[in-house]
């Protein structure tokens, strides 16, 4: 059969058109790749393991509900093993090997410090919950967003609780000799003074020192009315709590979340020593004065129970921040598209996004998305199913 020139051209055009139409159809069905850099093993993996439970649950829910406009989420996960070097390797692989739309993580500050500039250079939008202040800077890293509090917010909440709620003006503030500990004390002392506190004792202490009695006695002699320790070392924190108990010194201890961890609890000489210990936490995942979680969180916990996700060996806020993140990403892609600039533009206008862990807001100039008002203090000895009672003095939500 012969074919005229017009017929050939028409057929060719039709074929081109058909292929042109078919291509987006295939693209729409292809999964959206999300890079994920949790620390699932290694010394700092307890946070990552908790967060991972929420992430996996949310991705499963989104995919079961049809994905994002018909496209499934494919989580490309690389375990950082709590090691900054492995985190960098994982991030490089995600950006070069997989062309992911967005990266969630790392989930520990130590790993995020080298990864944030790397992802910024690769022009990949990034969302992370790490606390170190410098890890979200809208000018320096315009594609990087934080859906957790900053160290300033953490310290600020503890300071306000001690000075404004407990009405304690004479404060002893101590840390271990790690970078985190010393930086925290150096940052929080001026903040305390600014709100009218008198820092009567300040020290960096060797966390390996088995006897902290001299430190506690010096705090007592200085007239301290509250102790604020900044460390993630459960041994150091438990020694402070134990020594306060041995001396029967009835002052509150307020500070880092590790004060309320199971590891700290395990090292206490007597369970009653955990009274009047107030670590940081987050209002949406705390039991209120009525003993109940906020309604949205209660429904979430019911879902976790139905899915048989263990909460007893972790913290609810870890699971919650993990759960919120895939939804934040899906919301941006659904409403704006999977391209980097569209995701960033969407987040730059996000206002009070209702997550379980908190209500997130970003602007083009502010990529720290966690609200001050939701950083609170809790009663360490009230831990139940990964959540705590709000510390005395906080009103309802």
């Amino acid at each position, binding site marked *: 059969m012969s074919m005229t020139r017009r017929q050939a051209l028409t057929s060719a055009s039709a074929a081109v058109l058909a292929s042109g139409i078919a291509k987006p159809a295939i693209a729409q069905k292809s999964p959206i790749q999300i890079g994920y850099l949790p620390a699932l093993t290694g010394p700092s993996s307890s946070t990552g393991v908790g967060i991972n439970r929420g992430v996996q649950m949310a991705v499963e829910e989104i995919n079961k509900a049809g994905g994002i406009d018909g496209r499934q989420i494919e989580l490309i996960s690389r375990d950082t093993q709590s090691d900054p070097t492995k985190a960098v390797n994982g991030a490089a692989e995600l950006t070069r090997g997989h062309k992911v739309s967005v990266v969630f993580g790392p989930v520990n500050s130590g790993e995020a410090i080298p990864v944030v500039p790397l992802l910024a250079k690769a022009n990949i939008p990034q969302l992370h919950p790490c606390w170190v202040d410098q890890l979200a800077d809208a000018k320096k890293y315009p594609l990087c967003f934080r859906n957790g509090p900053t160290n300033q917010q953490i310290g600020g909440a503890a300071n306000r609780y001690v000075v404004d709620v407990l009405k304690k003006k004479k404060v002893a503030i101590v840390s271990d000799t790690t970078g985190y500990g010393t930086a925290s004390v150096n940052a929080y002392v001026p903040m305390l003074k600014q709100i009218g506190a008198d820092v009567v004792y300040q*020290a*960096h*202490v060797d966390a390996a*020192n*088995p006897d902290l009695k001299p430190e506690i006695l010096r705090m007592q002699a200085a007239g301290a009315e509250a102790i604020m320790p900044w460390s993630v070392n459960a*041994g150091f924190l438990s020694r402070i709590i134990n020594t306060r108990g*041995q001396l029967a010194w009835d002052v509150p201890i307020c500070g880092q979340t590790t004060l309320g961890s199971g590891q700290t609890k395990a*090292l206490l*000489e007597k369970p009653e020593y955990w009274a009047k210990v107030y670590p940081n936490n987050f209002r949406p995942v705390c039991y209120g004065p009525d003993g109940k979680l906020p309604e949205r969180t209660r429904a979430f916990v019911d879902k976790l129970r139905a899915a048989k996700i263990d909460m007893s060996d972790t913290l609810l806020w870890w699971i919650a921040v993990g759960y919120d993140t895939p939804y934040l990403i899906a919301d941006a892609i659904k409403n704006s598209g999977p391209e980097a600039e569209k995701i960033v533009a969407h987040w730059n206008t996000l206002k009070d996004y209702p997550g379980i862990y908190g209500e997130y807001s970003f602007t083009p100039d502010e990529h720290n998305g966690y609200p001050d008002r939701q950083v609170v203090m809790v009663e360490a000895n009230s831990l139940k199913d990964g959540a705590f009672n709000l510390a005395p003095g906080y009103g309802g939500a």
Partner: protein
Amino acid sequence: MLQSIVLSGLAIGSVYALIGVAYNVMYSASRVFSFTAGTLGMIGGILGSLFILRMGLPIWLGFVLALAGGALFGVVTEILAVRPVLKSLDQHLYVLSTLALALMTQQFAAIEWSTEPQPFPRIFDLPRGGFDQTFWLPMLACVVTIVGLELLYRHTLVGHAFLAIAEDNYAARALGLPERNLRIASFAIAGAIGALAGFAGGQLLLAFFANAPLLTFYGFVPVALGGMGNNRGAVAAGLILGLFQQAANFLVGGIFASVAVFAAFIFVLLAFPDGLAGPSTQRRV
């Protein structure tokens, strides 16, 4: 304040002294400074907590097994890190081999045990008080070890053989003494002593992988101050170190306490290069 300085100082000083003795026992048998001495203390604490708290074994059995674990590690140290480098002692390769084994063991403990300090059991069911078992157990362990070693070295044939090896191992071998077996036995004894330090001081230091480098350093100070191979000097220097450290904690506090200890250590070594008690043996020239 004075009571607290004395109690805490003597308790932690006893732990340092025992680690110093472990250094010395290994050194006497091999002329090798094995930097696994602090690791032995870590092993004693971790195994004690593992056997008694996690596995629920009776305290006496947990104690025996922890010491046996330390002794076994001592033997492994001799076989893996000491024996291969004995022929080239002058090149000080043992520094690398024993440090490598210590670091590997510490990392293994961090991965398999925990990176967080874990609780150590109360050994005796006694009410807590001023002169608590937390303080007197390490002191008791130190006294028992020193008396035991004195009895072993001075009143038994095996002890005399240990001393002969320590004095001159070529001559001892020429007399037909089984030098290798005696060296292995010395490392096993040192292992048990190191583990005893970690076990007796467990309530003070907890079951923590990071105790290994801490004890490796603070256990070395009594050896350097007391004279290498000199057990009595190590015990005296260990107790003085503990008391000085605790006094510095009270008087200057914070990180300055550690600085004070290091400064005193350097000053004493400058003034007495052979240690406060001098060398343990006179060399014939």
